[in-house]
């Protein structure tokens, strides 16, 4: 550490805030040398994470996930479709990720953020790779009708680790999903009106039992920054902009590797670093699993 | 946009304060209004209205459509305004879009009434042919040819004149078809139904310059406004819509005062407009 640098000398004279803005990298490296981060976290510590279920009343399933101040709102809407000929007894899941202009000063209306389609693609890849959702469960009437699941995730506040928060909110929204009871009416699927649910007179619901999806291996992810020999878990957007090498590891609950995503970056990832990232993710998966369980049980008590 | 020197600005403001505007009018006097009807033969109805250098055309086109699920006993009306680049070079391309959208939405507010249809200038139930199945869709298009202020009032007047000029073909419905099929209809080429336009309101825009407000502001006067309130009022003196432009806040009592002024002024405007429309229709019949 400590290449002779002009900023080194200045740092004692300058105000902390000015130093942070002018020499962000050195500011961070000073912290890293002490194994601490500016927000008082240790290097491997993720930010405080919360999930609240059922945040959107008008959706069939929804959740709000917060990692630090990164906030994601995921909501699921179910629609009916005719399944394709290739897979007549499967439904379909369509995942979209939105970054509205409210979430970050870099996004302007009319111009979608560059990161949005990439995160959306990553999410749908991850969810389909993990096999969390059995598309066969989404079938209503074989070959005739199946559920089309629209999952929309809105980033309400972008402060780093967008993918982690988005995946968490998506997973939580799926565990919150209540499939509406529907009945067959004239060859068309319609929703059973509330008041008829008990009486159940003429129309028999086609999906009486299947009100919840059974989720397979649930994927959880952790994004880490590689910088020199340091590994920083769960970066903020400030950290992401200063140290550009990111590694996102997705593991499912049985510790299968669902994705290891490292798009370039100045730092090369060697075997040991990859192993360290995976180990950190293993721990994080346990944490997130517990947080999710608590959120679900909290929902049931209400 | 209007570029005015400070002297000119003061002149306009001072004139209004003394009730003598730069073109010699008083605060509540309109510029002379000329109405011409039937200017577009292809349309079901059309009219051209000139107020000073402001020049607009409105046309009404009727097409058979299907009533909305929410209101099976009503026809549908849509209003669109287009700003021609002849009025202002900056309207070229997408330049006029913002103004067009603002005018369209203001006209919809002022002429089409509430959701249930109450207060609508146009009786939407008269447009239904077969309830729930066939109705007339009215497409009202406004075109701004030359702009010298007070576009909203001019467009409102032009639409009123165009509607009075509109003939809707009478329709004969063939024998009742099965309940969920579209009935066959026969449109007559000769018989036309005339619209009752007595309920159509007129729009009066009161532009506040300094402490006073004026009607029928020119472009130069509009550039000096602090805010403007457009009030649409019908024959009964009821308010049919209102919209405010310009950022500066208004005291509620001023708004109430404006309404009473508008009530008074609009009656004159409506009489003037009716006589102009009658004269124009007579002209058209002769020719």
């Amino acid at each position, binding site marked *: 550490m400590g290449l002779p640098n002009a900023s080194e000398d200045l740092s004692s004279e300058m105000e902390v805030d000015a130093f942070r803005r002018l020499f962000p990298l050195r500011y961070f490296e000073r912290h890293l040398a002490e194994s601490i981060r500016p927000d008082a976290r240790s290097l491997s510590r993720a930010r405080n994470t919360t999930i609240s279920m059922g945040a*959107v009343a*008008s959706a069939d399933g*929804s959740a709000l996930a917060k990692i630090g*101040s990164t906030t994601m*709102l995921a909501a699921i*809407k*179910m*629609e*009916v*479709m005719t399944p394709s000929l290739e897979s007549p007894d499967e439904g379909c899941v369509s995942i979209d990720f*939105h970054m*509205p202009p*409210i*979430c970050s*000063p870099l996004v*302007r*209306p*009319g111009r979608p953020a560059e990161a949005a389609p990439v995160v959306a693609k990553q999410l749908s890849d991850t969810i389909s790779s993990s096999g969390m959702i059995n598309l066969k469960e989404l079938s209503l009437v074989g070959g005739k009708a199946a559920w089309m699941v629209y999952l*929309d995730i*809105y980033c*309400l*506040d972008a*402060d780093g680790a967008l993918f982690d928060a988005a995946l968490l909110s998506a997973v939580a929204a799926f565990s919150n999903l209540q499939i509406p009871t529907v009945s067959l009416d004239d060859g*068309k*699927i*319609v929703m059973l*009106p509330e008041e008829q649910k008990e009486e159940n007179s003429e129309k028999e619901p086609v999906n009486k039992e299947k009100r919840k999806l059974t989720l397979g291996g649930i994927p959880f992810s952790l994004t880490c920054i590689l910088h020199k020999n340091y590994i920083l878990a769960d970066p903020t*957007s400030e950290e992401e902009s200063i140290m550009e090498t990111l590694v996102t590891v997705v593991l499912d609950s049985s510790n299968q590797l669902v994705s290891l995503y490292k798009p370039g970056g100045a730092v090369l990832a060697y075997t040991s670093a990859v192993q360290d990232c995976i180990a950190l993710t293993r721990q994080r998966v346990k944490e997130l699993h517990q947080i999710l369980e608590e959120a679900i049980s909290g929902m049931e008590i209400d | 946009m209007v570029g005015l020197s400070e002297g000119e600005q003061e002149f306009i403001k001072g004139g209004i304060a003394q009730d003598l505007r730069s073109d010699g009018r008083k605060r509540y006097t309109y510029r002379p209004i000329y109405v011409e009807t039937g200017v577009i033969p292809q349309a079901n109805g059309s009219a051209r209205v000139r107020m000073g250098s402001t020049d607009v055309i409105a046309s009404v086109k009727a097409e058979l*459509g299907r009533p*909305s*699920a*929410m209101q099976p006993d009503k026809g*549908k*009306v*849509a209003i669109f305004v287009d700003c021609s680049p002849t009025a202002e070079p900056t309207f070229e391309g997408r330049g006029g879009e*913002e103004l067009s*959208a603002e005018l369209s*939405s203001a006209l*919809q*507010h002022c002429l*089409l009434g*509430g*959701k*249930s249809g*109450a*207060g609508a200038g146009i009786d939407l139930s008269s447009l239904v042919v077969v309830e729930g199945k066939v109705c007339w869709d009215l497409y009202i298009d406004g075109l701004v040819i030359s702009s010298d202020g007070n576009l909203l009032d001019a467009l409102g007047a032009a639409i009123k004149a165009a509607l009075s000029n509109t003939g809707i073909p009478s329709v004969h419905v063939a024998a009742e078809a099965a309940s969920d099929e579209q009935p066959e209809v026969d449109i007559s080429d000769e018989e036309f139904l005339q619209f009752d336009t007595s309920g159509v309101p007129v729009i009066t825009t009161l532009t506040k310059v300094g402490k006073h407000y004026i009607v029928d502001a020119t472009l130069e006067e509009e550039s000096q406004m602090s805010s403007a309130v457009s009030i649409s009022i*019908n024959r009964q*003196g*009821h*308010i*049919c*819509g209102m*919209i*405010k432009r310009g*950022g500066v*806040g*208004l*005291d*509620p009592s001023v*708004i109430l005062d404006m309404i009473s002024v508008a009530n008074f002024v609009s009656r004159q405007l409506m009489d003037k407009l009716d006589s102009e429309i009658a004269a124009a229709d007579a002209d058209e019949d002769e020719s």
Partner: protein
Amino acid sequence: MAAKPSTTTTAKATYSPIDPTRKTRPPIFSGSDVDWLRPDSRGFHQCRPAFFRTGAVNSASGSAYAEFGNTKVIVSVFGPRESKKAMMYSNIGRLNCNVSYTTFATPIRGQGSDHKDFSSMLHKALEGAIILETFPKTTVDVFALVLESGGSIRFLVKQVDELDTLWFAVGDLPVVISCASVALADAGIMMYDLVASVSVSCLGKNLLIDPVLEEESYQDGSLMIACMPSRYEVTQLTVTGEWSTPHFNEAMQLCLDASAKLGKIMRSCLKEAASDEQE
């Protein structure tokens, strides 16, 4: 019959299985029918419970979250910052507003697009309250996202026919306006006063304050006011439907009183946030 359009007119081959028969017919009530209960069992002159919170979005200069019953809105304020387009020199600041909806804001999944009309109405309601002279040459961006709309059937209608879009649903706009002014205050933008906005629906002879969208779709007329409560000035005013002058006066007074109350709630929310900060 009525459910048909959603499949025939939309491009995608999916539809929402909302039961068409469930649509409740308008609660027909005459002028004397004053005891009729509103869907959310409020009194006619009673607003929905309003809740504001500042600092909803960390990365914005200022932000606020508002919840009025089912209507949930987030507004972020960015700036004053460099103007986006290379625009003409201006010795006063610019205000740029944008309102958009999430795809799940309405019962039927929408497109989640920008709402041009609301954007320009929001702009008009706010510009009179902001002291634009304090940030020359720069822009303040006010972006609003409606997370959930107050339960509307408007978008169902929208799919049926393009012509119906001209029906104006003002429901969420007062919430957006009030929330935006709290967000502006949170961002430290200089303002003459907060802007509180309230709307009133007229059903028959009754006036319903702060209508939900179900009520709005059966209304005979509507009045929306955005005003600066302390200065007692109206910055924006929209009226549709037929009103006699006394009726109009009554509605306006109702709105002004309600916005004064709303203004107090907004003020106390800001005060709370400020005192929290000091501690």
